């Protein structure tokens, strides 16, 4: 790009020499340039080197730059800076709020966990209490049942003993009667007391 400029500049210089050499051609060039509305006398074809337009360009440049500087420094840049700092502030605020909410959520979670643990221990306590209660009732019921069983056992044994005793007595009287009858049948006349004694002595051996 730069070399092109140099080339252009060189061409312009050569051209101006040419202009000096050939007056007629130079006049033609001047007419041509004038037709395009430029005072190409000193520029010699390169408008950038036409010094007669410099004051104009510099004047308008200075005006433009002053206006531009005024607009930017008074209006545009402070506004954008304010917007950017607002945004930064909003972002920071939001992040802080988010952090706060996060902390709150953590607290809530901790509270929830604590409540849960408490409820669990409470439940366990209640379960244990109930279990103890039930155990107690169960124990009492078992004791009652045992006592009932013991009482019934005793009663039953008593009745069994009675039955056994009555059975013994029955068998004794039956044995005595049978023995007395047998003695009588065989023609013996035995004393009732003798028979009873013999039967009893025999029965003792059996009962043993």
């Amino acid at each position, binding site marked *: 790009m730069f070399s092109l400029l140099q080339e252009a500049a060189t061409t312009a210089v050569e051209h101006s020499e040419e202009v000096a050499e050939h007056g007629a051609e130079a006049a033609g060039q001047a007419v041509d340039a004038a037709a395009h509305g430029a005072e190409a006398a000193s520029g010699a074809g390169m*408008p950038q080197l036409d010094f007669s337009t410099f004051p104009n360009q510099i004047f308008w440049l200075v005006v433009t730059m002053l206006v531009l500087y005024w607009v930017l420094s008074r209006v545009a840049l402070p506004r954008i800076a304010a917007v950017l700092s607002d945004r930064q502030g909003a972002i920071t605020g939001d992040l802080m709020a988010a952090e706060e909410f996060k902390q709150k959520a953590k607290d809530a979670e901790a509270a929830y966990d604590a409540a849960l643990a408490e409820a669990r221990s409470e439940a366990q306590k209640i379960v244990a209490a109930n279990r103890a209660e039930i155990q107690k009732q169960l124990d009492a019921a078992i004791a009652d049942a045992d006592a009932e069983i013991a009482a019934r056992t005793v009663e039953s044994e008593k009745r069994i003993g009675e039955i056994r005793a009555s059975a013994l007595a029955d068998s004794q009287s039956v044995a005595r009667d049978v023995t007395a009858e047998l003695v009588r049948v065989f023609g013996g006349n035995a004393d009732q007391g003798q028979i009873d004694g013999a039967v009893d002595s025999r029965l003792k051996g059996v009962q043993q």
Partner: protein
Amino acid sequence: MATEAEGTGLEFHPMNQFIVKPLFGDGPVQWYTPTNVTLWMGIILLCVVGLFVFGTRGRAIVPNRVQSIAELGYGMVHKMVEDVTGKDGLKYFPYIMCLFLFIAFANMLGLLPKAFTVTSHIAVTGVLALAVFISVTVIGFVKNGTHFLGLFWVTSAPLALRPILAIIEVISYFVRPVSHSIRLAGNLMAGHAVIKVFAGFAAIALVSPLSIAAVVAMYGLEVLVAFIQAYVFTILTCVYLKDALHPGH
């Protein structure tokens, strides 16, 4: 430069697009005459105001498209100034922003067909560069006093070399406005002239497709150049400002 090839009907006037002419009538160009320079600088001004004043009038926390672009430009230049010159350079941010916007809009608007590119004129870029050069030098002396001359005295070099380096540094310092302005004007002028030359060839039916393709390609390149040159001008201004604020290597 108005090379005419009468025989083939080809006409090349690649430099005519740069001619400064009065808007009204054909009189001489006085310093106050409204010219096409005035017109296009006015258009630049309107565009900047449209983008940066009307575009941001909503002052929205969530920006619309135009405001986003304005903020993007603001952010880019602001970051550039801060990165290159440091915090104390931000005082001069409005001026640098002003330069960037003026040059960027001038370059981009100059790419419109029939447009006049004010930054293709050495008079314009020269004044901009000189303004930067003078203000930077003044800032350097006001902020640092004679210590500013330390910019030319390379203390990290061997003592014997320092005077030679000082001469080179002084020359390079004074060449700054020249390179600063010619880089911009030269790039713009050359690019536009080349497009015009290619466009001139379109008169020949045989080469016109090639010529048009070349114009399109050059145009794309020129869009890039238009932005890059505005960026380069701005970042160099920042670099010069940094030298003024923090002399010494």
